[in-house]
């Protein structure tokens, strides 16, 4: 619904939104037509709802997990001969990404033939989040192309959407897969947003994965991505794509506020400072804070700050996380909360609606020229460009001006580190006993190898993510992508700083409820920073220890 209304109205900041509301109201009151349209929208997200209401905010992430793709690559397997195609993660930077793009040719069919013969005959069932009405055309094209290529490569394992392949929407998939798995009707292979898999791993529903069986090695993936597939020390999935966000800012507002538009904030302390200056000097909001509860947008925006200052919900930002002790009691965590408190309460330099906003509201404010900076996703950037093109009249001018003045940069660092939430998807194999289809291991290996190898890892992540297989960054397809999509190299450059949410089934509760409620307690001054942090730390430790009552 949010999506629909947005599309309908293209809100651009306050003035425009007022008109939009009137328009929406007018439409509704126009009677049956409007009502039924709105009703139609409603049915979509009504039930699974809850999730949906928030999930749908199109762009970004959602619940703790995050759908999309990923990043880097690394070198390629020295399978054949070839020179060293490894990707050196330590050199990671926008420049390095540009440099290595297009340095490697890759033949998927040849790669796969080493794993499962191309004339193998078998069958497998597969579930994933396919393109939706909201997806850009390029996503549809690559999806179609993917299945064509697959059927050409493995004619003995025919697959297409509807025949062995189930395409889900983001809002429905978790419930559907959960229900299917409980009913022993799960697909053989499922590509799930990062961290959804851990719940099934914890229930012992997934097959353990040995990367070598699929022609991969640990070096082919980001360590954080592999970590997100681990449960109790064992690997239960393979990353298909990874993604991160970056800081988007409005150069014009920086200039109006007397800040250097080419020198965006490098630290979170500077963000607080710049936010205050922008708000004081221009009247616009400085930083796009999100602190809504029960909402995936919130942890995606707040955790980078928390981690940067040295805090964490558990110990997920540390080298060898044990997920038992909460670091919210740390000084770093309190400093991060204090920074938020300073912006919201002391300086009032961020949108007052932060407690109820999802990130869509920030996109609206930003494209309306009313927001200085916020943490954005490549898809949000793309949607703003789209909206600027679709807007009309005065609004179009304003939106175009904003789009022309978008700056993007790495998410700022803090005293402890630079950090961003590590998102993406992983592919998993359900145990035969939880599936209604015989598990044909060779067919499953074939589809996974085909999909996770550099070519399709890159192409399927085209619009908003990055290949899970690091060597995807070396392909010429990546070169083409970097030319087509702005902002990509910055978001991709954040990948080394990506920290996955705790890889435990309780992560959803911690991230979507405990953390946002802690934030709200601080921002509404119901509690002091110390008390809120201590209370949240206690709760989180109770949750992971399984001793939480109500």
């Amino acid at each position, binding site marked *: 619904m949010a999506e629909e209304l947005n599309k309908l109205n293209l809100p651009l900041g306050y003035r425009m939104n007022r008109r939009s*509301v009137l328009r*929406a109201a007018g439409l509704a009151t126009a009677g049956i037509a409007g009502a039924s349209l709105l009703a139609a929208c409603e049915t979509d997200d009504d039930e699974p709802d809850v999730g949906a209401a928030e999930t749908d905010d199109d762009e970004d992430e959602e619940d703790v997990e995050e759908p999309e793709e990923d990043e880097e690559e690394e070198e390629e397997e020295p399978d054949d001969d070839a020179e060293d195609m490894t990707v050196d993660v330590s050199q990671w930077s926008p420049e390095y990404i540009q440099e290595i793009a297009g340095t490697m040719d890759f033949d998927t069919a040849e790669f796969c033939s080493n794993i499962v013969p191309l004339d193998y005959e078998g069958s497998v069932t597969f579930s994933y989040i396919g393109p939706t009405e909201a997806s850009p055309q390029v996503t549809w094209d690559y999806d179609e192309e993917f299945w064509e290529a697959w059927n050409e490569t493995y004619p003995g394992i025919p697959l297409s959407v509807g025949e062995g392949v189930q395409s889900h929407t983001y809002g429905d998939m978790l419930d559907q897969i959960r229900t299917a798995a409980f009913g022993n009707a799960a697909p053989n292979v499922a590509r799930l947003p990062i961290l959804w898999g851990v719940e099934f791993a914890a229930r012992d529903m997934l097959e353990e994965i040995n990367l070598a069986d699929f022609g991969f090695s640990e070096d082919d993936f980001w360590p954080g991505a592999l970590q997100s597939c681990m449960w109790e020390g064992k690997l239960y999935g393979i990353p298909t794509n990874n993604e991160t966000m970056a800081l988007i800012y409005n150069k014009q507002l920086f200039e109006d506020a007397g800040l250097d538009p080419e020198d965006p904030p490098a630290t979170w302390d500077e963000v607080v400072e710049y936010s205050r200056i922008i708000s004081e000097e221009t009247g616009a909001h400085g930083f796009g804070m999100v602190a*809504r509860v029960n909402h995936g947008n919130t942890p995606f925006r707040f955790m980078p700050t928390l981690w940067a200052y040295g805090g964490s919900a558990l110990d997920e930002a540390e080298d060898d996380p044990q997920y038992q002790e909460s670091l919210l009691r740390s000084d770093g965590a309190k400093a991060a909360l204090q920074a938020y408190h300073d912006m919201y309460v002391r300086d009032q330099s961020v949108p007052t609606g932060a407690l*109820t906003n999802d990130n869509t509201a920030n996109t609206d404010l930003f494209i309306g020229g009313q927001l200085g900076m916020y943490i954005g996703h490549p898809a949000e950037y793309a949607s703003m460009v789209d909206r600027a093109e679709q807007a009309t009249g005065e609004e179009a001018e304003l939106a175009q001006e904003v789009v022309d003045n978008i700056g993007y940069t790495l998410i700022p660092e803090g005293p402890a580190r630079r950090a961003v939430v590590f998102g993406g998807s992983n592919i998993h194999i359900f145990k035969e006993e939880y599936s209604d289809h015989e598990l044909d291991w060779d067919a499953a290996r074939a589809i996974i190898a085909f999909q996770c190898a550099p070519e399709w890892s890159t192409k399927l992540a085209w619009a908003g993510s990055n290949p899970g297989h690091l060597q995807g960054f070396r392909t010429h397809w990546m070169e083409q992508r970097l030319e087509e999509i702005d902002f990509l190299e910055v978001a991709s450059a954040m990948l080394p700083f990506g920290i996955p949410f705790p890889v435990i089934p309780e992560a959803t509760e911690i991230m979507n409820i405990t953390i946002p409620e802690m934030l709200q307690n601080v*921002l509404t001054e119901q509690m002091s920073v110390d008390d809120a942090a201590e209370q949240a730390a206690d709760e989180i430790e109770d949750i992971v220890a399984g001793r939480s009552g109500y």
Partner: protein
Amino acid sequence: MAVTTPQQATGQVAIRASREPRNVFVRMYRQWADYAYIFPALFAMFFVIAYPIAYTIYLSFYSTPTAGDNVWNGLTNYTSIITAERFWMITQNTMYWTIVSTILAFIIGTGAALIAQREFIGRGLVRGIFLIPWVISHVATAYIWVWIFHSDYGLVSGMLMDLGIISSPLVILDSTTWAMPALILVNVWKDFPFIMIMMLAGLQTVPDHLIRAAKMDGASTWQQFRHVTLPHLKGVIIITLLLTIVMNLNHFTLPWIMTGGGPASTTHIWITEVYALAFRSLRFGIASAFSVVLFIIMMSMAYFYVKAMTAGDDRRR
């Protein structure tokens, strides 16, 4: 039971037995067709109602870790709920939400019904306008009102600022004080047409001759309403209030979409809390126990309510 001859007594028993066998299975056997007809419905109800309720009660005695099997923990779920400060805070929110919403919607809905019932030019138009909130879906309503109330670009603040009445935007949905009243306002706006329709339907069944009799007896307009219309509407009022209360107690969409239960849980009500517990936190055991507690509370409220409202009716039958 006066004196009855053995013969008579036997006769009576025999008659009763032949009409209504004491053994339920015998009765079922004799009326097998009746039961066959309702069987599909009963069968379906068992799976969609009885089984889930039973399973919820079962789960409420277990802790349900994501990894591993359910563990029996007796009444622990219940005691932890009842003793939690948060439960009572949310109960307070729920009561506030339900009672104020219901009363306001009822007063406004009844008033609207009385207006819509009168004969005047443009009555159809007015009735139509009153119905608008009702035909808009809840989700659309929620989003529209979020825009209207929004602290940064809301319609209300914008207009008041344009008029120079206020100088900075009103903080409504982001305020721990005003978020709930704002939600209630929207809820009342959304629900009053339902009450209006129910009451209008009731009003149209008020016999005209009773109103005329009351006029003749010297009753003022208010007295006619009080002594004739209102007693006649008693049944409709009970049903409407009951439905509205249940609707409000179970109302999910507005709070969830408009505030997500925030800020600082001030708009969390039972149903959003249960949902969050079950489907956000995956704490099915606790959520089940919570549901059972709510079930008990609601059933007893309904029982006493219905009993109170129907007291004194028995004699008439």
